[in-house]
């Protein structure tokens, strides 16, 4: 028995195709019966009321939009599902040739039409059945061409292998799964869990961790079905099938059994020997393996293109920009900076400090407006943009603070300085200000970080829990050349046109994420070690909070209030319609920030210049 379990399965092409069709039709019939039983869901008050969701599915093609609208009509939807049940039953029965093709066509043609109509509540089985159905339809249409049928069966097995592997890799990439917490966490829910299993996992945590590790191993190692000449295919497919049967009972995911089960005949067929012989050793069937070879060639070509694009983006990031200069600081880091605006020595210098995983270009709207009045300095912290991180030893935020102090020392001349920082940049500006005493005459904190935020804001603490992992994945993926898979974020096109492509290149380059990860590790350690002592602020302060921060994270707003109270005098504002991220990138909110900064610097008054030169004390500005 054991030997037979580890032997490749001797399956014939035609029976594999028929078996796949039958198993998949069980999923299709079940699914359509469920939809027919849940008509309320499509009426007014249902969560798939087409009147409200149709706008999400506008394709840009009037013909497709019309088709979706027709399919979404209540009577048409009902008729289509009835036809799908009929077609599914047709495939379950021992029908022949054209009938089977017609049934396949009905099922595969209606799936994408009905997908938008039922979008809320769809799950993985809908995706599996759509893909399998498409492949069996093509295979049935060309079932006299064995090579074509093999390409279809390969497609099904490659998708099945991808599905398990992707699910496994995504779990391995998650700290929640790696720690073993995820399984217990899912089981405690009423939606996908089971009270008995949850209690058992809680009583026997080691068993829970072992089951969780088993799931991760089964899924992420699923490509082993093709190892050892297919000898592992049967045990792996058996294990995967048992996994779905257990999930059917425990998680209420019954449809997954026939859905994934429908891919197993193709998996066993493609993992088995390419040449099949009868008992006398004569060749009876020869499998065509064009599809996996094409996939390998395609994957290699895509990887090559991705790496070439990565190199192009890196070059773009490192290219010198107009008016950009560089200097080395005492930490040995090299900072790229730009100085814009009037050159009048009497005017204060506005220094903009960007946030974590951000760019100097995020300031473009604000500095564009502020530099009409005052000289303005923007720069990329070490590791971001053209700035290089070369400092030795473990990274601490002190390095970034020292870089900022050195930059101001070297560039400001005799001008007074106003530091403007967004997010983490705000905290760095706060730290740098006492070191530049007598030079810094004001501080502008734009939705700033606060060292107590991880302890006092549950929302910040939640976000922080997975940030390191996210930054690591971003950096590693971009090093592999996956930058092209990152959609162009909407904030890029909110920025002034001149900086968009440069900001986008940085966003898709691993340099930004490496720098962010280095900074985040230090930030997290320092914030968690913060003893809660009030921060010393000895200059006037402008505190700006984004409306979304104020409403969504009142604890964070409270920290902003406390900061404002520490200053000799302060001005506090909430920018309506702004979020933490769009505060600078959205033209309208950024203009408000710029106006607040200019107004604040004006309020610093004549003393804004007097603070410097004679070793002046910034408190003179009160």
């Amino acid at each position: 028995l054991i030997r037979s379990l580890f032997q490749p399965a001797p399956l014939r092409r035609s029976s594999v195709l028929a078996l796949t069709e039958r198993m998949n039709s069980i999923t299709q019939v079940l699914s359509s019966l469920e939809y027919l039983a849940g008509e309320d869901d499509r009426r007014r008050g249902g969560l798939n009321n087409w009147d409200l969701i149709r706008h999400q599915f506008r394709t840009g093609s009037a013909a497709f939009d019309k088709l979706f609208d027709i399919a979404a009509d209540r009577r048409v939807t009902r008729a289509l599902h009835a036809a799908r049940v009929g077609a599914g039953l047709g495939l379950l029965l021992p029908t022949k040739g054209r009938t089977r093709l017609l049934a396949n066509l009905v099922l595969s043609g209606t799936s994408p039409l009905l997908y938008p109509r039922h979008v809320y509540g769809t799950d993985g089985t809908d995706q599996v059945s759509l893909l399998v159905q498409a492949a069996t339809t093509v295979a049935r249409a060309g079932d006299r061409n064995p090579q074509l049928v093999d390409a279809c069966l390969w497609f099904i097995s490659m998708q099945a292998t991808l599905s398990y592997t992707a699910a496994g890799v995504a779990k391995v990439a998650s700290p929640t799964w790696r720690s073993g917490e995820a399984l217990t966490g899912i089981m405690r829910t009423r939606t996908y869990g089971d009270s008995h299993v949850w209690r058992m996992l809680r009583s026997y945590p080691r068993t829970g961790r072992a089951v969780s590790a088993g799931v991760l191993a089964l899924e992420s190692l699923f490509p082993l079905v093709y190892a050892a000449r297919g000898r592992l295919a049967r045990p792996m497919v058996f294990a995967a099938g048992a996994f779905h049967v257990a999930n059917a009972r425990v998680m209420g995911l019954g449809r997954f059994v026939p859905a994934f089960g429908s891919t197993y005949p193709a998996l066993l067929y493609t993992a088995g020997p390419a040449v099949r012989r009868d008992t006398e050793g004569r060749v009876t069937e020869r499998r065509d393996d064009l599809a996996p070879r094409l996939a390998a060639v395609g994957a290699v070509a895509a990887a090559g293109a991705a790496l070439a694009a990565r190199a192009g983006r890196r070059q773009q990031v490192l290219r010198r920009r107009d008016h950009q200069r560089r200097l080395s600081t005492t930490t040995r880091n090299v900072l790229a900076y730009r100085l814009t605006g009037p050159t009048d020595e009497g005017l204060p210098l506005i220094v903009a400090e960007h946030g974590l995983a951000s760019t100097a270009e995020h300031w473009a709207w604000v500095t564009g407006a502020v530099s009409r009045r005052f000289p303005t300095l923007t720069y990329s912290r070490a590791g971001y943009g053209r700035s290089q991180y070369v400092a030795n030893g473990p990274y601490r935020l002190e390095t970034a603070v020292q870089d900022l102090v050195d930059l101001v020392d070297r560039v400001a001349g005799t001008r007074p300085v106003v530091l403007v920082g967004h997010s983490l940049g705000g905290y760095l500006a706060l730290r740098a200000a006492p070191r530049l005493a007598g030079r810094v005459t004001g501080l502008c904190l734009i939705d700033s970080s606060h060292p107590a935020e991880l302890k006092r804001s549950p929302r910040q603490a939640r976000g922080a829990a997975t940030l390191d992992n996210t930054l690591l994945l971003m950096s590693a993926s971009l090093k592999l050349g996956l930058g092209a898979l990152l959609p162009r974020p909407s904030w890029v096109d909110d920025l002034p046109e001149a900086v968009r492509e440069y900001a986008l290149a940085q966003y898709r380059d691993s340099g930004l994420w490496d720098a962010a990860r280095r900074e985040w590790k230090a930030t997290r350690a320092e914030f968690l070690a913060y003893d809660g002592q009030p921060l010393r602020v000895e200059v006037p302060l402008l505190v700006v909070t984004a409306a979304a921060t104020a409403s969504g994270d009142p604890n964070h707003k409270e920290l902003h209030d406390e900061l404002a109270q520490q200053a000799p005098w302060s001005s506090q504002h909430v920018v309506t319609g702004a979020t933490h991220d769009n505060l600078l990138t959205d033209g309208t909110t950024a203009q408000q920030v710029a106006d607040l900064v200019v107004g604040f610097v004006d309020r610093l008054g004549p003393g804004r210049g007097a603070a410097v030169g004679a070793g002046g004390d910034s408190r003179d500005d009160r």
Partner: protein
Amino acid sequence: MNGAFAGRDRRRDFWAWAVGAGLVGWWLVSAASQHPLTTFDRLRARDRFGVVPNWRFFAPEPAQHDFHVLHRVLTADGEQTPWTATSSIARRSDFHTVWFPGRRREKAVFDVCSVILQHVEEGAAATDRPAYHLLREFVEVAVRREYRGQPSPQGFQFLIARHTGYDEEQDPEYLFLSPFIPLNEDPA
């Protein structure tokens, strides 16, 4: 048969190539849409037909909470009712293994709540979005059903709460509170 087949094998016909290339292209797009971070879903973002699969089941961050939709009503005589559950989650049974049509609605509630909370997280005005209107109507219809044959209430308010399910040691979290929604007249 073997001879004829071997001959064709050397010279794959056009259709086998075309179908093979098309399906492999589809598979490559699918493979490029499985990054553990959904931020990398550039290709899936363009999929209107649901043909690019998402195989990251329960990953990277699995749902470890249930969503509950609750509502309270301002009755016709101005009384405010306590919070009542609008949605419910079926208790697991053996029968679910083979037939569980309610799964789709439970998943729909979960999906819609997730979308609304995502809008809130992004700082966007959730009340402008289709997901909010779907849930608003979902609750409104439930309220009207509850008060059928009675004077129409003045309005209602709904709430999305999150709870750890069977783990009752944890308190529920209240994540989204709708504005007061007036109910002036019966819908046409």
